[in-house]
């Protein structure tokens, strides 16, 4: 089993990425931070379940963060079933290192509605299959597909608009 020092070192390596995964799913700095803290505490408690040691740590803790973020999204939906239009807060982390491509993609994420953004984040950041996303968010599979379709379509529109301005 990992020592506390190893756990902290591995967590330090992953924490920024984990936070951003939670942010992409929840759309809120406060919720992402809550999900990350909850997940880390849960990870300490369930550390004996970690199979594969150091190498397995990143995907193992990512899954815990994703689950916590999904739980928060579901809890929010029970309280306020439809999200207000202001769906995602700006990424509060310092941006200087962000590549242009990454910033562009986050720009697109900020344009998506909450439902689409959650599906995209779970599909492409958490690598969950669509069926699992549907179960996690308690949505029909068709709705998950539809949201992903819309998000990908919007990206294509955006790229085509860019291409119209930039095509060589």
């Amino acid at each position, binding site marked *: 089993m990992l020592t506390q020092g190893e756990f902290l070192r591995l967590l330090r390596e992953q924490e920024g990425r984990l936070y951003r995964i939670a942010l992409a799913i929840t759309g809120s700095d406060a919720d992402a931070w809550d999900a990350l803290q909850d997940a880390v505490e849960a990870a300490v408690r369930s550390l004996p379940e970690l199979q594969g040691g150091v190498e397995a740590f990143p995907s193992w803790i990512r899954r815990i963060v994703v689950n916590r973020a999904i739980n928060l999204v579901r809890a929010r939906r029970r309280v306020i079933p439809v999200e207000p*239009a202001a769906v995602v807060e700006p990424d509060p*982390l310092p941006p200087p*290192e962000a590549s242009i491509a990454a910033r562009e993609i*986050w720009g697109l994420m900020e344009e998506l509605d909450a439902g689409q953004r959650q599906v995209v984040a779970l599909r492409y950041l958490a690598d969950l299959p669509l069926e699992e996303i549907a179960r996690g968010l308690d949505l029909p599979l068709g709705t998950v597909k539809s949201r992903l379709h819309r998000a990908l379509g919007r*990206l294509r529109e955006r790229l085509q608009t860019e291409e119209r*301005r930039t095509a060589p």
Partner: protein
Amino acid sequence: MRDEQIYAAEAERLRQGLNEWADEGRLPAGRSAALAESVRRAWSGTAPGALLHGPAAQPPVSTRGRRIRNWMAGAAAAAALLLALPLAWPPARAWATDTFPVIATFLGLRAQADPGWAWALEHEGFQEVLAQAEDRGYTFRIHRVLADPTQTAIVFTVAGPEPAEPDFWAGETDGFWFNGKYFGTALSVDGSVLDGVWVGVVEIDPLPEESGSLRINLNAIGDVRGRWVVEFPVTRQALTAVSRTIPVGQPIGPEGLGLQVEEVVVLPTRTEVRVMWEGRVDPGSPGPDIGDLEVRTDSGVVVPFQGSWGEGRGDRDGNRWFRWHVKFDPLPPDAKAITVSLKDVAAVTPGERLVLPLAEGATGELPGLPQATVRTVVPGKATVEYLHEFSTPFPYAGWVVVDDRGDEHAVSSQGTSAPPGERVTATATITWDDLPRGRTPATLEARWVWRTYEGDWRVEIPLK
């Protein structure tokens, strides 16, 4: 998944871009330290043998407290909406809200984020409709319409075994009809499952006439194909009556380009700035493209941007007309004037071309633009590279291959840029079919040379 196959390139770009973005995340030092402290506390509360079963130490109280407060605030807000909205409804509307309480909740939640919707709710700006159609076990219902001179927002529900978003695009060309005529419109949909039904809003263009009958032909709900046709009367007269269209006619953007702020439409539900361009371009060449507009009131308030759409027409001689409809939140009631500002415009310069001899290593350059180099040439295909600022459009576009007799031939071209950075290497891959017998490709020519103009162009518009 089919969509991911159809959108394979977009899906891959999304996956790659998102993961790059996530990889670049770094927690601020304070949060990082707080996280480490949480680990230590949890660790100290879990003796090795108790890791699976023993109680873990609680995280810092402030964290848990904040979460509970947020949750309570959300619950209180939702409860307030559920209680307040139906009570605030005039008696004439009670039947609809009684039957579909989700509509009141949906309207209330949207109104929290959109002051135009809030105004419409308070002033009975939504027309009440109850039109419905059933097929394949699904019921598609129309409940409310917000129609003004800048928009038509239709609130609907879908009920059935697996409530899902209606696919208004599935009919392709027969979706919306007004007064018996096809209504070609842009559209956007937003919504979610709420209390077992899909509740949402579809926003389409403003009605072509003040009043009439709107028909929606819906052909798919989620993955279920069917036919749901609803038709209902709708009018934008009431909101037209409280709208003001302020003629402006002031130029904006680079001198001589011909862009102007044509007019501003002020409504309690929305503000719309209309920017117009009319001019002449080389036949087949595109007109200019404007960057983001900003609207600021005389008291310095930046009015939130909502989106934009455009309409245009042209002829084969290169005469073009285009109008951008740029949408913003309603103006604050105390606004006496607004300033519309624009910081960048891209335009193709008529008559300007980049000519490259069709030979590896050949170069070409235009004043103020990057040098382009022909990197590879094989029969029917060439690649051209140049360095350029990522934030500006690729300057060279509209490629053709010109043969040894001076005739132009169409090509296919695809542009990529890599690696990510402020300055990127753009690569244009240009391919063409065999030329007529006896002709030899001689040059590659970019017929459209985009130049980006940056500035701080402003138009001040009194509202009184």
